[in-house]
Structure formats: structure tokens, C-alpha cells
């Protein structure tokens, strides 16, 4: 556990990619396979579910630290992270022993599941006294299901490649999909023979980069295609060995969640992998994403919801055909094969070809982007016809070009402290717009300001608090921000009667006074598309 805690600290303490990879590679080279497997499991975001509730952990920690619960809560508000608060509050005692990571996970952490409260309490108090500060922090992160560290899966893959000599692409592929963190898995992961394949395993997703600079910089328009950018669930549909698998980009197997798509998938020829977007779809248009959320939220899919929110896969790439990996052939060829394949598959409209946006030149593409909202898309994706299907988010061949967001000038009404690196600062804001001379809260936003601006808003909040409700401060309505958001819908759950998607602060309008902010009427007018 000490080595893993040291690795965590090393990753946490540097922002340099090279140093992170070096720390990871050193860990993987030295760790026993059983530990390395768990480390990869956690580092790639496969964290355990929260095993003990926050409220219980807080109560037990307060007890161990001999402080009242209210003081625990004050401390938590200042730190912004439960695991760290507990780490800081407990007396420093442990650190004598050094059991392995796998021991701590398999013998101590996982057995906590389903234990009654008394056993969990005794176990937690015991572990807290056994571990030193660093280990305790990592342990608490695992217990609270919030283990995250500044190393992307990509860095882990590079470090594993460096430590094992196995090509990065093979490592990435082996890490996709379902696996158990066992020593045998680790041995397979770093095995030099790379001809292996697992029937269920998806390919690493290739992601578009936000467009930078003018379109003309991309070269001749004839070398590119444009497709609508949909707001759905990016997925791979796999047909191998007589079985069908549907994977999300979050590497979650979506079995049973979209039965209509899986059913269509079973009609695909053996050895096929499609890449596309799962969308609620009626006619030739997607339904708003909120409809998809209705489906995602359900454990049991009744006939009614399946009829009301039918889901399709809008397919835009073919990654495997007849069991052959097609990722290295040009996109133009893959598209041609995809087109023919879908035409030959009687999927009853469940597998939809992603249509190309007709445009002769960059001017027409620019024109097309303006129509995105009309077709229910959030912009365009531009792909180079000659491009391979890469790994991860890379600049160069695939670009996403979103439509300009909606924007509204709103007044800061409430502020709450943030968490993580924004702990102790007022960074989470609620904004209001005018309605009949009064401000109505209409959106919450957390992002978009620079650190310097955050500090200034934080200072404003502290000096202009009118009321405190727990962590929430009601501030003097004075600061105006331009909020940007992607979508807007009628909502009965919100006081303002509307709900917006992905709101964030586009600009601090220091040139505007509160009374110059927009009205609810103006915001409502956005409900009708222009």
C-alpha cells in the first residue's frame, strides 16, 4: 500500500506528463502483478462503488477525532473533499505495517460490502489507526468511491508500454471492455504476443477535437466530409462469435438497455464492429436528450417507454468487417463499406446511416452549421476522407464544430463553495434573470471563469453576503455574467419554468449593472427556435 500511496502522491505532485509516465512505469516495473492489476483497475477509473455512506464515515471520523459533528461539517466545507477531511482530522498514529495493495483491497476493502454497521465501524476505525497519512488518504478515496488522480488512461497505457515493451495500441485494446484485476490479467496485458482477441472487446474510441482556427486552414474542402454532431451516447455495436455487444464510450457494457439496437445488431454479419451514436429517434430526427434521460433512468423498460422513446444507432464508422480490423484503411473506404453493409441489413430502421451534410465548399459547410439546431444536432463533425480511425482525442483528422451556444446575461444570486482544487472558494453559482421586477433563479454554473476571476468573485461573495443558509450564501445582486448554454426546454421542476443544458459562464459582464441583465421573457423567447 505504501508504494501505491507514493505513486498517488507522485502523480498528484507533478503536472509534467514525462514525470507522471516515469512514476507509473517505475511502479508497474516493481509492483507484484497482483498489485499492478489493482493499480491499473483504479487508475483507469474502475473504482469500487461507495461501500460506506458519507454520513457514517463522517460520524465515525468525528468520534475518532473527538469533535462534534458540526465541526466535522465545517471542516469538510473548508476542505471540499470527504476523504481528505477525514485524513486531516484523524490523529496520526499508523504506518508501521506495509501490506500489499491487493491485500488491502481484497482482504480489507471488498469484505466491507454488505457487513452490518457495527462491523464496518470497527473495521474503519481499525484501518484508520493502521495507515499513515498518505495511505489513509488513498484508502479513504477508495472507500468513498472518489479515487481519481491526474493520470489519464492514455498515460497509464503509455507507462505500461514503456514498462513492458508491448506496443501502446495493443495495451489500449487489451484494456478495453471487461476484465478482472487479477495477476493473470496483468500477465495477459503485458504478454509480448499481441495476436490475442476477446470477442466482446471494443476498439479504443477515436474522438474529434474542437475546431481551432479557420476552416480554410484544413485545406481543400473536397478532402473532407461533414456529418451532424449529435448529442447522444457514443457507442460501438459488436457482432462476434454469434453474440452482440453494445459498449458506451465510458467502456460500459450496455446490455439490455437498448434491446431494439441489440436486436438489430444480431442481424449483422459475423465479425462486425460499428461506431456510432445512440439516439432517441423518431422519423428522421432525434428527440431531445431529456427523453433519452428518461430511458437511462429506468431499471425496467416497459412497453410504453420503448414506444415513446425508441432508440437507434446512428452509425458513422465501420471498424471491423469479416473479423478484420479496418481502422487503418481510409475513412472513404470504410464509409463505402458501411453504406453497403447497412443497406443489406434489414434492421427496421434501428441502424441508421449517418448522412453526410451536403456541401460543395467551406462556405456551404458554414451555412449548414447554422441549420444544425433545426435538425436537432449540436453542430458538425468534420472528418478527413483519407483518415485512419485513431485512438483517443487527437488533433488533425477529426474536428467537432459546435454551433454557437445560446447566451443570456444573468445576475449572480447565490454562491456555494466548490470542491477539489476549488475547495474553500465560492465557485458554484446560481444565476437569476428578471421577472416582474424580481430575480428568478434560472441556471447554475460552475465553469468558465479564470482562477483570477474566481478569486475576485469569491472576495465579492464574502463581502456582499446578505444571508447564509448552510453553505449557500445569498449575495447582493450586483454581478452580471453572460451565460452560455447548449439547449433550452420547458421544465416544471424549475422555478423559472425552464431548464438549460450545459450552462457555463462565457464572460463576466463588468460593463453591465444588475438591472441591465436579461428578463425571463427574453429567455423564454429562446424556446422557439429561430
Amino acid at each position, binding site marked *: 500500500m505504501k508504494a501505491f500511496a507514493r505513486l498517488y502522491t507522485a502523480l498528484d*505532485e*507533478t*503536472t509534467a506528463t514525462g514525470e507522471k509516465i516515469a512514476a507509473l512505469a517505475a511502479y508497474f516495473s516493481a509492483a507484484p502483478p497482483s498489485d499492478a492489476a489493482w493499480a491499473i483497475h483504479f487508475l483507469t477509473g474502475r473504482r469500487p462503488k461507495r461501500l460506506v455512506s458519507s454520513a457514517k464515515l463522517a460520524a465515525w471520523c468525528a468520534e475518532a477525532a473527538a469533535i462534534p459533528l458540526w465541526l466535522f461539517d*465545517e471542516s469538510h466545507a473548508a476542505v471540499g473533499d470527504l476523504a481528505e477531511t477525514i485524513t486531516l482530522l484523524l490523529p496520526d498514529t499508523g504506518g508501521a505495517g506495509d501490506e500489499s495493495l491487493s491485500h488491502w483491497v481484497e482482504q480489507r476493502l471488498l469484505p466491507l460490502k454488505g457487513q452490518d454497521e457495527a462491523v464496518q465501524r470497527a473495521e474503519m476505525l481499525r484501518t484508520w489507526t493502521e495507515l499513515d497519512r498518505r495511505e489513509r488518504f488513498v484508502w479513504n478515496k477508495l472507500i468513498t468511491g472518489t479515487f481519481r488522480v491526474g493520470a489519464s488512461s492514455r498515460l497509464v497505457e503509455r507507462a505500461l508500454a514503456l514498462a513492458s515493451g508491448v506496443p501502446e495500441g495493443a495495451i489500449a485494446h487489451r484494456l478495453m471492455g471487461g476484465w478482472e484485476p487479477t495477476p493473470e490479467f496483468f500477465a495477459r496485458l503485458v504478454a509480448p504476443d499481441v495476436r490475442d482477441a476477446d470477442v466482446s472487446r471494443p476498439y479504443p474510441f477515436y474522438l474529434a477535437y474542437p475546431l481551432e482556427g479557420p476552416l480554410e486552414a484544413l485545406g481543400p474542402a473536397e478532402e473532407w466530409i461533414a456529418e451532424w454532431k449529435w448529442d447522444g451516447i457514443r457507442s460501438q455495436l459488436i457482432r462476434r462469435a454469434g453474440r452482440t455487444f453494445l459498449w458506451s464510450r465510458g467502456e460500459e457494457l450496455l446490455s439490455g438497455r437498448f434491446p431494439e439496437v441489440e436486436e438489430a445488431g444480431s442481424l449483422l454479419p459475423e465479425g462486425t464492429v460499428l461506431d456510432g451514436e445512440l439516439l432517441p429517434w423518431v422519423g428522421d430526427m432525434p428527440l431531445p436528450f431529456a427523453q433519452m434521460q428518461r430511458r437511462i433512468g429506468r431499471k425496467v423498460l416497459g412497453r410504453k417507454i420503448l414506444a415513446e422513446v425508441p432508440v437507434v444507432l446512428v452509425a458513422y464508422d465501420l471498424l471491423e468487417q469479416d473479423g478484420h480490423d479496418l481502422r487503418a484503411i481510409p475513412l472513404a473506404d470504410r464509409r463505402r463499406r458501411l453504406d453497403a453493409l447497412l443497406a443489406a441489413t434489414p434492421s427496421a430502421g434501428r441502424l441508421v446511416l449517418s448522412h453526410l451534410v451536403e456541401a460543395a465548399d467551406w462556405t456551404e459547410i458554414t451555412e449548414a452549421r447554422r441549420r444544425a439546431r433545426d435538425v436537432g444536432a449540436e453542430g458538425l463533425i468534420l472528418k478527413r476522407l483519407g483518415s485512419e480511425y485513431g485512438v483517443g482525442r487527437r488533433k488533425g483528422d477529426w474536428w467537432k464544430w459546435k454551433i454557437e451556444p445560446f447566451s443570456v446575461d444573468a445576475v449572480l444570486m447565490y454562491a456555494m463553495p466548490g470542491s477539489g*482544487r476549488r475547495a474553500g472558494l465560492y465557485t458554484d453559482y446560481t444565476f437569476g434573470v428578471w421577472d416582474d421586477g424580481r430575480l428568478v433563479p434560472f441556471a447554475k454554473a460552475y465553469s468558465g471563469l479564470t482562477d483570477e476571476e474566481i478569486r475576485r468573485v469569491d472576495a465579492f461573495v464574502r463581502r456582499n453576503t446578505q444571508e447564509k443558509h448552510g453553505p449557500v450564501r445569498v449575495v447582493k445582486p450586483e454581478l452580471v455574467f453572460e451565460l452560455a448554454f447548449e439547449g433550452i426546454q420547458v421544465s416544471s421542476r424549475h422555478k423559472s419554468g425552464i431548464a438549460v443544458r450545459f450552462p457555463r459562464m462565457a464572460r463576466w459582464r463588468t460593463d453591465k449593472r444588475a438591472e441591465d441583465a436579461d428578463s425571463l421573457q427574453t429567455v423564454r423567447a429562446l424556446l422557439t427556435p429561430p
Partner: protein
Amino acid sequence: MTLLRLTDRGLYCEVGNFFVDPWGAVDRAVVTHAHGDHVAWGCRDYLTSAEGVGVLRSRLGPDARVGGLPFGERISINGVGVSLHPAGHILGSSQVRVEHGGEVWVVSGDYKMDPDPTTTAFEAVRCHTFITESTFGLPIYRWPPQHQVLRDINAWWRGNQEAGKASLLYGYALGKTQRLLAGLDPAIGPILTHGAVERMTAVYRAAGVPLPPTTHAGSLDRRTDWSRALILAPPSADGSVWTRRFGARATAFASGWMLVRGARRRRSLDRGFPLSDHVDWPGLLAAVDATGAERVWVTHGFTGPVVRWLQEQGLDASAVETRFEGDVDDDTGQEDGPEQ
């Protein structure tokens, strides 16, 4: 009876007609220490500890009328007994003891209990009413042994040398950097300073505080090999053009705030060293206890939690809204002059 009360210009002793750490110009100001949030410009007369006269002068200039009172020596201001007692915060920092008609009040200013060779150690003073800071008034703030932190800093410096990187260590120009200096091992390599740090360090040396030799980084050729050096600079220098000359460099900040991960990450620093010139939670409670005070006024910091905790221990505690900022967690770098 209220010997001190809060006015719009600060804590005021009506009987003695003087202020303690006022934030506006007044006739007579008793100053606990020379940090910017405790010193107002334009007062007619300043009184501070004899140890602190030099640092206060360096802030106020040669024309200010600054009187120095040795620690523990008692004078009378309009019939009110006034004496100063070491606070251990920075060179010359003091607590102000005020006595009249059998009533004793003590204003702590900023203080710490941990040993610091650059200032006289904190001394608890018995009183009826204690006015305490609360910059780090939460139980999450428990300083690790500070000699251990200084050892870590020296180890970090050595590690950077091995990696061929200059070590850029940030701390407040007045107080923190001199304390760091006293704890650094000059055998490791050259210790360089930012102009603001060099100025305050000279004031410390003039006051007789023994410190290892330093060189003003600005006086060196830009093509100097910086990789073996440790450079002391105020936090406001972070990210500035001035730091670019050092080439490959590691950055760290020495402050009590660095105990919390988020505070360090927010600054995108390589390291944060929890070295503080303020009391931590156990220190604060111990200080209050040692004064024997029945009444405690809590100023700048986590006033709410400290007041509630003290009330639950049976003390008459309340919050007082001063304009002191304590160790502000931002980059304003209150005591930094322009780079020279």
C-alpha cells in the same frame, strides 16, 4: 466594562485614547506587527515592540514617529497600563496587554506557538478578555513538526538539483522567507532572493537576526546557471516574467494553506510545504486556555467555528469583524514591493 471596542477605524481604547492596529489614520496607534493589514498609514504616533521598530520603519519610512517598547515593560497611556509581549509571528510581533481598573485585555495580533529562530517565542499572558486571530481555526489544521517540513524543503532542493532544476520557493516577503532562510541548509547550494525578500532580509540582519548569506537574483547575470540555486520569492512572483530567467525550475509555496491539497492544486505548484506563522487548531485552543480568559473575541479567519467551539467549552466567546486578513490565501502578496 469594555476596555477596547470596535470602531470604524479599528480596536479603540477610549480611556487611554489609542488604537490597536487601526486601519485608518489615528493619533496614536499601538501596532502588533508590521504586516500590511495591521498597519495604517498616516498615524501621528506609532508604538511597537523594540524588536519590531526596524521592520515597522521599513514599511512606514524614516519620517514616521515610531516608538519602541521592550517586551514586558509597562508604560501608562492616559492612565491605561500598556505592555507588549512576544507573539512569535514575525520579528518584533507582539501581543498588546491593556490594563485599567483591575481589568486586563490582551490583543494577540497574529501569533504562533512553534519555535522560530527569527523571532522571540510566544508567551502566554493572563487576562480577562483575549482577542485572538483564527486564520487556521479548524481542527484540520494541525501543523506537522515544523523542523520536519524544513527537512522536506531541503530534500526537495537537493532533488531538484539532481534533476537539473532551479528551486523556486515562495513565501511572504516579510517573516516567512526569513524563517525559511534560517531553516535552509546553505551547504546545499546558493540561496538567491527576489528584491522584496532581499530588502526585508536586510532589515532582519540589521536587527541582529543571524541568517545565512543570500544574493539578490536580480544582481546576477541572466546567463547564470541557476540549477543548483534555491530562490526565495513572494507568491506574487509566481508565473511572472521574472521567474522565466531561471529556466527549468520547480516551484513550491510555504504556507499553512498548503496542508490542504485543493489549495495547492489551485495554484498549479509542484509542491506545497505546510509551514505557517499562525497558530494551528491545537495551538489556538492551548493559547486561549493559557490566558485563563473568561471572554474571548475571535477575529479574522474561521471565526464562526472557533466561537462556537469556545462557547461549547463554556467561555463567553464572540466574533469581532476586523479588517485583518491573516495569512490570506491569494496572490496579492501584501508586503511585496515592485521587483528591483
